[in-house]
């Protein structure tokens, strides 16, 4: 059983939730903790390509998301119904090493982790 699942449900720039979640995941990676990241609901907007956050005076969150692999964080899960509801396809995402999950698979994911950090 894996240790920590980080659930990220918010869009990237209006609040700090999405950035806070990624920072927590990166910290877990730096401590060699087994951590997974689930992007769901508004959180899937974080995966959109061609974000250009300087337009609102911020740094691109998608770049931080792409950096996860460099830190050895490979368990990135995406709730597929959340993508579909937003007309986002796998091809339109800024990451390709993600695992798309159905509702059923997402329920099973919660059972595979010992702790959840909720964002």
């Amino acid at each position: 059983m894996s240790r920590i699942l980080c659930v990220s449900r918010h869009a990237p720039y209006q609040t700090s939730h999405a950035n806070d979640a990624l920072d927590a995941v990166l910290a877990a990676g730096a401590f060699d903790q087994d951590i997974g990241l689930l992007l769901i609901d508004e959180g899937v907007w974080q995966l959109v390509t061609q974000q250009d956050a300087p337009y609102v005076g911020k740094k691109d969150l998608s770049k931080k998301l792409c950096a996860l692999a460099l830190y050895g964080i490979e368990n990135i899960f995406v709730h597929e119904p959340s993508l579909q509801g937003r007309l986002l396809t796998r091809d339109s995402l800024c990451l390709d090493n993600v695992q798309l999950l159905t509702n059923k698979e997402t329920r099973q994911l919660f059972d595979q982790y010992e702790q959840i950090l909720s964002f």
Partner: protein
Amino acid sequence: MPMKYTVVVMGAPEGSQSSRTALAFCHALVDQNHTLERIFFYADGVHNASMLVTPPQDEQNLPADWSNFIQQYDVDAVVCIAAALRRGIMDTDEQSRYQKSAANLSAAFSLSGLGQLIAATASSDRTITFGA
């Protein structure tokens, strides 16, 4: 069976109810003889560590109540340093480092990094987030 808990507080004392819920939960935790491995104040939760919060006298002073709780039960209360600096919460060390004219972190809390959240979670039986 007593368990070890990590509690994550994400809400400010004013403008969200979640800090209040988190404190009530922590009181019930110690009532039931569970252990608080650490309380981690993240995002807007860092404002609970401000010594300058001054609600009207006939209202609950949530930062004061957090400080009392932390000191009474000798709990490790860590405020995320990055989240705190972004929101204007700092201790005297950070005041010196950034050459600011004041510090406002209450004595019951300490500033540290996200590693403290991860380490606490990894060694706890339960982790609960109070979001805002």
